[in-house]
């Protein structure tokens, strides 16, 4: 690492370790000379010099703080001197007990590493402010409709314009549309697909992202003015080589020319990462008064709170405005409410709860790890009572001894923490890979100074936490009496043993909660994978592309192109079927609309369904069964009657108990709204993901409703082959059409389950670690108690107890600990179970199979932990045991 600034970490270290007055002077001198050195040596060497001098300064400064003359042992040295003595003593004692140190370090590395890794993700998503100017003032404004079950919904443009006009609590409101994309002929003349967003003209002002070149948009450009775009900093660098003259240049997107009017600031990405182009909405002024402009909900407004206004005030105001709009436009705005939520909450959305659960789960693992270490140290401290008593007799005060013990545990924690940071770095990288789409793309997930601070904090906290228990023992023991204890009676004091039991019970309880949670998630994920999507996923791949409207002006052109492409692909060996749709199954959106049925009175409430356009090969290719009537055919066309196919679910809702084939439906009640004849009923596909029940669907045919944005579905050929074939044939037909995305359908399924998979994998791993630690803790306590009771067991055996009886003593003890912990864990689980409910699919938090499984796992763990100590107990030789006095 080389830079023109002195090494920051070193400077922080200086600030931390030197007294303030000295620090300023030393750091100033070092920085001055560092800069001097930069002139005739490399930054790396200057940095190395800086670091070396800083370390020397710290060392001399510390050593120098020792007074030259020592008067009495009591005030010998300062606190720092004592600390360094304690640390040295602790390190020396570690070398005598390497096994313990390794065990503790590993346990802690795992606990601190996992906690830090999860914190890194939580920090990037939930805690860190969004990377926009004054992000705390940004809010999402959404529409809500209880009657239709809408929450956090998109807004209609007319309502958005009304809010913007009337709101005073929001300084301004802007809006963006769905993510869109354009084909862009890049510098090497190959068509490239650019992700973009359409936005309201004030977008850059409200987001606080002043373009680094040129300008944002102006009012006129939304209302049909010149076609302009703002490009991302990344695209500017990539495609224009950072040309300072880029503003004013014309680029063709989808073969339509647009003028670049600005370049966004570096790193700015909204509403999504990877956006390269922003273009203004293109609305027409006549529309503003049209009913559909208030009825169609397709934009996402984002507002900036006025100075000094909080979220709840703005929320109340928007609700009032929405209520006013209900009264003014009853036809379109019936029961239509609105609200405001911080943009951060909005962006994080549904992932908040699973992420928080992960945070809790990993904290539980850390607690179990701490309890385990406390247990180990407590056992060790019991063995050290004599040593401590002697030191106390030689004049060490109780406070001094406690400090010594705490120093030891903090030193241990520091070892674990250092290893833990390494573990965390690996785990964070793994987590990001594993998470895929599950983590909202707000800020990059990186381990920065904040994360390191967190790791340091939990290291200290755990060190003090598990160090407390051995220290407490000092308070229990009358040390002078300890010295008189004979070694054979060990500790007569039952309190340390009780403390250790308590710790193990706590470990078991936490492990029970984790195991139960992991079990539920596993069952739920299993159920999700077992869901029949309604179509066959086998060897199905999708390729998305869009035909430019400028060259494919009408239906005939699109149809000709597409038929040609299908013919070519079907001729490819291994391809079984090819089809196209505008919307993929599992990625559908809800339409809410009235349905008018010929010859019947209109229904009271609108229907919610998905509307899709598919070609006539769709149902055959996807393996969706035609249950009644017929599929679309190539004979359906613009000149034949308009036909639709509905799915089973919608048929059951609209035509319960009847045959819908032959019925006529239309979406509006005006005379010029066309009637659509139902010609078939098909099986239901999952529309919104595997975990959502299928909704009603209405299928239209591409022969009557042409589409330019295509999801090509290819079945049969192995993945790579299909991709190559599509690439080849598409390029042969029209080289200027880029493929936007190419995905195996399996990937779409697993993508839709990415959060579930992440949660399940991590919870299972955490549960396994907690279980292992609890078993270790249990083993430790049992082994210790067998050792302590060797004499007692010896006497029992001498008096005629058999192996079974001895076994029973140990197993009973294990059972008592496991059952007590299990009961506590069950109670704790009962308290948090409801949190899980929202994340579970077809499994209830009280699932008997899962809970039975947990019981079995815990009992098995108990027996496993009891096995070795029990065997040792049965082998106690009474003669040896009694002689060992």
């Amino acid at each position, binding site marked *: 690492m080389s830079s023109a600034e002195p090494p920051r970490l070193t400077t922080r270290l200086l600030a931390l370790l030197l007294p303030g007055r*000295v620090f300023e002077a*030393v750091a100033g*001198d070092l920085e*001055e000379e560092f800069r001097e050195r930069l002139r005739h040596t490399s930054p790396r060497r200057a940095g190395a010099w800086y670091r070396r001098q800083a370390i020397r300064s710290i*060392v001399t400064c510390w050593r120098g703080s020792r007074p030259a003359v020592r008067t009495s042992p009591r005030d010998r040295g300062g606190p720092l001197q004592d600390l360094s003595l304690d640390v040295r003593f602790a390190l020396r004692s570690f070398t005598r007990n390497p096994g313990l140190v390794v065990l503790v370090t590993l346990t802690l590395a795992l606990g601190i590493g996992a906690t830090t890794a999860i914190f890194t993700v939580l920090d990037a998503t939930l805690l860190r402010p969004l990377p926009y100017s004054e992000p705390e003032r940004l809010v999402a404004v959404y529409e809500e409709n209880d009657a239709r079950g809408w929450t956090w919904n998109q807004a209609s443009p007319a309502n958005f314009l009304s809010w913007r006009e009337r709101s005073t609590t929001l300084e301004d409101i802007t809006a963006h549309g769905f993510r869109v994309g354009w084909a862009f002929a890049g510098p090497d003349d190959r068509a490239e697909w650019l992700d973009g967003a359409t936005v309201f003209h004030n977008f850059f002002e409200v987001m606080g992202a002043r373009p680094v070149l040129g300008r944002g948009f102006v009012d006129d450009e939304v209302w049909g003015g010149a076609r302009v775009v703002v490009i991302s900093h990344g695209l500017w660098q990539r495609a224009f080589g950072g040309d300072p003259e880029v503003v004013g240049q014309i680029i063709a997107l989808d073969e339509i020319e647009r003028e670049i009017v600005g370049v966004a600031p570096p790193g700015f990405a909204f509403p999504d990462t990877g956006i390269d182009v922003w273009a203004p909405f293109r609305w027409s002024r006549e529309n503003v008064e049209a009913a559909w402009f208030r009825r169609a909900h397709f934009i996402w407004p984002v507002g900036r709170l006025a100075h000094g206004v909080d979220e709840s005030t703005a929320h109340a105001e928007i609700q009032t405005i929405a209520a006013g709009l209900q009264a003014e436009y009853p036809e379109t705005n019936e029961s239509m409410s609105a609200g405001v939520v911080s943009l951060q909450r909005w962006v994080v959305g549904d992932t908040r709860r699973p992420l928080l659960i992960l945070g809790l789960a990993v904290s539980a693992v850390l607690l179990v790890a701490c309890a385990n270490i406390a247990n180990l140290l407590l056992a060790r401290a019991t063995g050290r009572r004599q040593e401590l008593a002697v030191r106390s007799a030689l004049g060490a005060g109780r406070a001094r001894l406690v400090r010594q013990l705490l120093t030891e545990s903090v030193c241990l924690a520091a070892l674990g923490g250092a290893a833990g940071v390494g573990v965390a770095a690996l785990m964070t990288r793994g987590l990001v890979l594993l998470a895929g789409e599950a983590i909202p793309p707000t800020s990059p997930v990186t381990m920065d100074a904040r994360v390191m601070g967190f790791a340091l904090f939990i290291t200290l906290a755990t060190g003090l936490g598990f160090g407390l228990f051995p220290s407490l023992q000092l308070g229990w023991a009358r040390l002078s009496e300890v010295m008189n204890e004979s070694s054979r009676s060990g500790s007569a004091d039952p309190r340390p043993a009780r403390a250790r039991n308590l710790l193990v019970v706590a470990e078991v309880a936490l492990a029970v909660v984790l195991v139960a949670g992991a079990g539920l998630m596993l069952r739920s994920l299993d159920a999700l994978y077992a869901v029949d999507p309604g179509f066959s996923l086998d060897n199905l791949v999708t390729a998305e592309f869009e035909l430019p409207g400028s060259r494919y002006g009408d239906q005939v052109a699109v149809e000709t192109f597409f038929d040609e492409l299908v013919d070519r692909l079907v001729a490819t060996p291994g391809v079984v079927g090819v089809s196209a749709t505008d919307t993929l199954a599992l990625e559908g959106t809800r339409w809410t609309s009235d349905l008018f049925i010929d010859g019947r009175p209109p229904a009271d409430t609108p229907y919610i369904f998905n509307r899709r356009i598919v070609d006539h090969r769709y149902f055959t290719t996807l393996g969706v069964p035609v249950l009644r009537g017929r599929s679309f055919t190539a004979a359906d066309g613009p000149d034949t009657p308009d036909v639709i196919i509905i799915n089973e679910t919608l048929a059951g809702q609209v035509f319960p108990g009847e045959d819908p084939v032959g019925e006529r439906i239309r979406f509006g009640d005006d005379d010029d709204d066309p009637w659509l004849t139902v010609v078939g009923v098909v099986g239901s596909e999952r529309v919104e993901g595997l975990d959502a029940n299928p909704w009603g669907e209405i299928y239209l045919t591409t022969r009557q409703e042409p589409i330019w944005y295509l999801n090509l579905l290819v079945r049969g050929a192995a993945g790579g082959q299909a991709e190559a074939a599509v690439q080849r044939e598409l390029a042969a037909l029209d080289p200027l059409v880029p493929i936007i995305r190419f995905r195996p359908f399996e990937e779409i399924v697993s993508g839709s389950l990415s959060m579930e998979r992440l949660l399940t994998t991590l919870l299972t791993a955490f549960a396994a670690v907690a279980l292992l630690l609890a078993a270790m803790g249990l083993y430790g306590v049992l082994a210790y108690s067998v050792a302590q009771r060797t004499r007692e067991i010896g006497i029992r055996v001498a008096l005629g107890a058999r192996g079974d009886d001895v076994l029973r003593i140990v197993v009973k003890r294990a059972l008592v600990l496991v059952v007590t912990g299990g009961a506590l864990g069950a109670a704790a689980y009962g308290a948090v179970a409801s949190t899980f409910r929202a994340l579970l699919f077809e499994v209830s938090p009280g699932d008997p199979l899962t809970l039975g499984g947990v019981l079995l796992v815990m009992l098995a763990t108990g027996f496993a932990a009891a096995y070795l100590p029990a065997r040792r107990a049965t082998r106690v030789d009474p003669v040896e045991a009694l002689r060992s006095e």
Partner: protein
Amino acid sequence: MRRLGEFEQMLLFAVLRLGDGAYGTAIRQEIASRTAQDLSPGAVYTALERLETRGYVASWFGEPTPERGGKRKRFYRVEAAGATALNRAYRALLAMGEGQAEHLDLLERGIE
């Protein structure tokens, strides 16, 4: 009154020589150029701090400058008590060493 060590005497002389410009880096460079000893800033300030508590030197902060990352220079000057102590130590050493320089050189080379 404790006697001044060699290091402390060097520091006091450096401060004396530098006059108005006596601050950390200048002091270290002065000592380095005359005695070829590379001292760490920490060592310099710790010793000066100690001298200050004894009233031998006084210090004050200058203005923050950009090349120091906005940190201020800490300047020193020798106080009367410091001058007394240094004078005494230096003169004592001079008195004891008078005429012994050549003898020392020879001894060092093992000639006598």
